[in-house]
């Protein structure tokens, strides 16, 4: 008999006033009994709309039935058939707009907590499960993957399962891409990311760090080295600035820099870790996406007394996940919506002392259908602060496109691919994830990596 409760089983989390002073994970995850109870809310319906909402098509009802029966390790194996990084996806996927949005139970009450269950299963496996892996027999064919973020890791894992000899080239000193430098510890613990990446390495994937493709080797040189196909999953790491006066003052960061210092370089442990970061008493984060929420919540944890989110549209238009906005508010982040920065003001010795903003109102819808914000005349006002973090978006790093003749890109830098296959304009070269779409989500990048792996397999097995 299914559990007909309209609400998800609650997931324990740290209290807002405690967690906004530490970098430990906010959400604590289900206990076994909670997971079984939640799993029993799944009706195991025949149509499985949830699966079509998942970019990597996790066999959702099947794994959930195994959880309901307490067969957690089997549930893990079921998820891993199609998803290389379940501990990551269970935590950072926007399930509300993917699998859970299509859940039959969501028609009345809350959907099944698919993300929470996926996370539970992955965590349970790490604690209790077997590390034995069935490594595929090598077919001797070498494939190169550029970038070890979600897209690259998924593509590499899938190809390794098919017997390919996969080498992943990573520019940073640790693999993981945005999972390591972008998403903070309190949403996605870094030790866990590395453990999950180990499961991909266990399949036989060789990850080489400190290798900046485009500098140390070009895509063409990779092919000369005997790689029969190349997948580019180099992400969207180029930060956008606003091009307003004062942006180069001391105390102004791109969100990429701020988060890289904190997440990748552990600047929150300074001076135990050597990388410093500067956070004043008052901090403004400009932008309304998940990156802005992450930066604001990180600044709060570093001791800022006041942290503002400055966003030019209204809260309804914010691209950040609802849950993150909710968490940010609970933690005391101050939202200044319909507000746009005009210039950053500095002290005589060149440090930020404030930001001049103007109020906005929503005008006519633009091409994207969103109502365009328009300045309200005479509403200029100044916020006093010491730190400004700019989180208005990223575009693909041009390092690879500039050094790869024959690789077609969009005017804004995204690599152009055939949607069905991930094939680029260059033969044998595929691409996916943020390098193609611009900044999007972890799971969409994984879906693109998966699709490209299928295309590469088709190309190389038919050759």
């Amino acid at each position, binding site marked *: 008999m299914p559990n007909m409760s309209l609400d998800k089983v609650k997931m324990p989390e740290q209290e807002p006033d405690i967690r906004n002073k530490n970098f430990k994970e906010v959400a604590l995850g289900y206990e076994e009994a909670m997971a079984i109870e939640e799993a029993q809310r799944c009706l195991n319906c025949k149509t499985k709309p949830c699966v079509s909402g998942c970019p990597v098509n996790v066999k959702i009802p099947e794994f959930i039935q195994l959880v309901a029966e307490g067969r957690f390790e089997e549930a893990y194996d079921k998820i891993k058939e199609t998803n290389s990084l379940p501990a990551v996806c269970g935590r950072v996927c926007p399930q509300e707009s993917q699998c859970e949005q299509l859940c039959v139970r969501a028609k009345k009450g809350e959907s099944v907590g698919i993300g929470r269950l996926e996370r539970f299963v992955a965590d349970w496996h790490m604690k209790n499960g077997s590390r034995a892996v069935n490594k595929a027999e090598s077919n001797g064919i070498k494939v190169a993957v550029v970038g070890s973020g979600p897209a690259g890791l998924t593509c590499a894992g899938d190809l390794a399962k098919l017997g390919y000899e996969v080498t992943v080239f990573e*520019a*940073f*000193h640790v693999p993981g891409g945005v999972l390591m430098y972008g998403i903070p510890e309190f949403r996605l613990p870094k030790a866990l990311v590395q453990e999950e990446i180990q499961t991909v390495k266990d399949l036989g994937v060789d990850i080489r*760090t*400190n*290798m*900046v493709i485009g*500098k*140390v*080797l070009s895509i063409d040189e990779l092919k000369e080295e005997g790689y029969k196909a190349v997948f580019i999953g180099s992400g969207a*790491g*180029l*930060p956008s*600035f606003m*091009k307003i006066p004062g*942006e*180069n003052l*001391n*105390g102004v*960061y*791109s969100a*990429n*820099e701020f988060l*890289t*210092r904190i997440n990748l*370089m*552990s600047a929150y*442990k*300074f*001076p*135990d*870790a*050597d*990388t*410093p970061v*500067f956070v004043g008493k008052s901090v403004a984060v400009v932008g309304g996406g998940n990156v802005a929420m992450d930066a604001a919540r990180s600044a709060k944890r570093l001791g800022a007394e006041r942290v503002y989110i400055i966003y030019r549209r209204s809260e309804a238009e914010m691209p950040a996940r609802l849950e993150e906005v909710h968490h940010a508010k609970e933690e005391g982040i101050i939202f200044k919506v319909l507000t746009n920065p005009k210039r950053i003001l500095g002290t005589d*010795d*060149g440090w930020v002392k404030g930001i001049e903003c103007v109020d906005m109102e929503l005008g006519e819808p633009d091409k994207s259908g969103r109502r365009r914000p328009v300045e309200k005349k005479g509403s200029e006002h100044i916020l006093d602060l010491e730190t400004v973090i700019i989180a208005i978006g990223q575009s693909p*790093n*041009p*390092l690879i496109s500039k050094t790869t003749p024959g690789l077609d890109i969009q005017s804004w830098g995204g690599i152009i691919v055939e949607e069905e296959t991930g094939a680029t304009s260059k033969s044998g070269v595929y691409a996916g994830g943020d390098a193609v779409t611009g900044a999007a989500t972890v799971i969409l990048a994984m879906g693109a990596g998966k699709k490209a792996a299928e295309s590469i397999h088709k190309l190389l097995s038919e050759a």
Partner: protein
Amino acid sequence: MFKIIRKQTLNPTVVLMDIEAPFVARKAEPGQFIMLRINESGERIPLTVADYDREKGIVTIIYQIVGKTTRALSEMSEGDALLDFVGPLGTASHLEGYKKVAVVGGGLGTAIAYPQAKKLHALGAEVHAITGFRNKELIILEKEMGNVSDKLVVATDDGSNGNKGFVTNVLKQLIDEGNKYDLVIAIGPLVMMRAVSNLTREYGIKTIVSMNSIMIDGTGMCGGCRLTVGGETKFACVDGPDFDGHLIDFDEAMRRQGMYKNQERQSEDKHACRLGGVTNA
């Protein structure tokens, strides 16, 4: 891991190391740099490629002990290994097509100017090298610079080597004596590069400087190293580190370089305490 093959102390605060890094050695060109990290809790710091041996797979770095990381690096020995060493990064210097060049190095900047002088010399340019140090004890790479230049003037601020003066005085004198340079390369502290740029602007001589901004990733993903060049924001790690010295906003660059002064002191103090056996962490 990247092994330290050779370590040589060039002066009381400047150290040379040959690092085993075959992939970097294969591609490195003058003007490029690497980022290194000593250990797990370490920061990433940029250092210029001072020399390379493609066949042996070795990259030479020369650094000055100025804070915690460079001090810790200087305490490492031959046979030890660095955790991370990534490169070559940045855009290589454009050195082709010049007939007569003045290469000006200030202090440690001499080590960064050396590969440029070497390449210009190999390309057949007439190279005049001017290097400047505070005193005689600090002079580095005199022989090496001599080998790749047609003229070398080593100046000291206090005249302890018998040649008192700043590099700018020497350069001005050489220009006034009728040397027609089609390029000046100036590498050293920001104040020195600004002084050289101000001088050559008067004479209308093209001047390239090598900017030493604070960097984190070194691949263009954060903008920590941004500079204003000719009114536009540029990233030193990908657009540079070489820039037209006449277009740089040096005041802004100096300010940004000092952004972490307090933290840097705190970090070094802590390191010094640990070395002294004092635990106050």
